[in-house]
């Protein structure tokens, strides 16, 4: 099996509005990556487009815009988990020997149809994500004593990190009291506990180890992958709010494949579309025991969401997972500029969709 290297990456600025089409947004990140000249357009053997856009034939359109005639052009849509699912698909193409180079581009516009899943009748009229996030938060507070201040401290940390990331949607540090006094949307979630949908794109280039040699100065390997889909509806999720079972399975499988344990992780990008989700991720990824997530933020020895997470960067659905992989690659290769986590060698990406009905964990390393 071929080892897979993240050979390059490029993320555009995530912004509230854009006048550009989804394809122009995507091509912006893709062309920025290609201009680094790690590969020629003629050497890209697959293009994978990650987006919840309702457009058709999207990967082929993107390939044509980028001057690529790939063997394989496919689109992956998996709501918030799309980008990480696309990276898994690219990994498979290279590990199997089918391709030597795969360009993955995730892009979304703010008004993406991926913002809600109208198919799911179990949600009734409470179709927006904030309602399931509220159920998770209420349960965690009652069952484990997690506090609104602990949730707010996740937001403060991620906004602080985003302040060092020029691509992040939010460029201003905030305080716990600002989070606590922001508009109450539900009990207990405030406006600043919630991420914002936005426009943006991110691209990563996956290469076989052989192709990466002589081209990539500091190769960062994908060493572990775990992914699990339990359902699309919330029927099963609603019967157990204590954890996202898919994240636990994905983490277990990824740790096993990479032959590492949670304590080996130096830096992690976690799914934090709502502040409570990052607290639950600490537990589901076994950084801490069940119920201890609220306290982890106070004495964490793992750098979490250095790019600013979804709370700080905004959430262009199809781009989010790709940009998480781009961030961890930049961290491990020592190119994260002002937000560099010193001495990190093993990194983790965690992403999920629709209340954790599906989840993905990807582990990356310098060896």
């Amino acid at each position: 099996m071929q080892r897979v290297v993240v050979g390059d990456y490029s993320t555009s600025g995530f912004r509230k509005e854009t006048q550009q089409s989804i394809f122009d947004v995507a091509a912006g990140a893709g062309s920025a990556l290609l201009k680094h000249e790690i590969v020629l357009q003629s050497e890209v053997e697959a293009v994978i487009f990650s987006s919840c856009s309702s457009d058709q034939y999207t990967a082929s359109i993107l390939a044509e815009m980028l001057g690529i005639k790939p063997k394989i052009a496919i689109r992956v849509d998996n709501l918030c988990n799309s980008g990480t699912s696309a990276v898994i698909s690219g990994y498979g193409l290279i590990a199997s020997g089918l391709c030597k180079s795969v360009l993955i581009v995730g892009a979304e516009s703010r008004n993406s149809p991926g913002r809600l899943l109208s198919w799911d009748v179990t949600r009734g009229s409470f179709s927006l994500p904030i309602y399931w996030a509220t159920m998770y938060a209420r349960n965690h507070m009652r069952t484990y004593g997690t506090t609104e201040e602990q949730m707010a401290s996740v937001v403060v940390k991620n906004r602080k990190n985003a302040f060092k990331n020029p691509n992040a949607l939010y460029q201003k540090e905030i305080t716990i009291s600002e989070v606590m006094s922001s508009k109450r949307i539900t009990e207990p979630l405030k406006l600043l506990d919630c991420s914002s949908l936005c426009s943006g794109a991110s691209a990563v280039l996956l290469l076989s180890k052989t192709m990466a040699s002589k081209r990539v100065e500091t190769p960062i390997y994908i060493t572990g992958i775990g992914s699990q889909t339990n359902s699309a509806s919330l029927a099963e999720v609603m019967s157990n709010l204590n954890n996202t079972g898919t994240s636990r399975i994905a983490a277990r499988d990824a740790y096993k494949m990479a032959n590492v344990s949670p304590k080996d992780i130096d830096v992690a990008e976690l799914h934090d579309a709502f502040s409570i989700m990052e607290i639950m991720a600490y537990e589901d990824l076994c950084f801490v025991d069940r119920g201890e997530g609220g306290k982890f933020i106070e004495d964490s020895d793992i750098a979490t969401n250095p790019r600013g997470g979804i709370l700080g960067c905004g959430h262009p659905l199809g781009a989010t997972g790709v940009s998480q992989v781009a961030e961890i690659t930049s961290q491990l290769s020592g190119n994260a500029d002002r937000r560099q986590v010193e001495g990190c060698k093993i990194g983790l990406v965690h992403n999920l969709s629709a209340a954790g009905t599906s989840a993905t964990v990807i582990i990356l390393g310098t060896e």
Partner: protein
Amino acid sequence: MLRFKDFLRKGDFRVPLCTACKETIWPPFETCPICLSRTIFRRTTKRGILREFSTTFTSETPQQFGIVELGGVHLLGSVHGFGISVGCKVILYECGIDNNGYPFYKFKKCP
């Protein structure tokens, strides 16, 4: 899903039951995902247990909502009444499809 919505549109909340393995199927599919046999849509109890709840302030007036376990399935609905708590008994008193095409389930606390 279409048949479920047809019943729901008339205010008739029905949950599929597998004709072969007799499992309750939720979300409401016409084929059983366990044994792949046909399902039939049966009326279920209207009495459920509130498993989690909260209040949303997104509409003009605050609204209580929550997860109700009803006849072996879980669903999100509005919950009316004072002094509700996790574990309290609720009853489905109205359901249907709203003007935007979304199902709605309205519960109230059992007296």
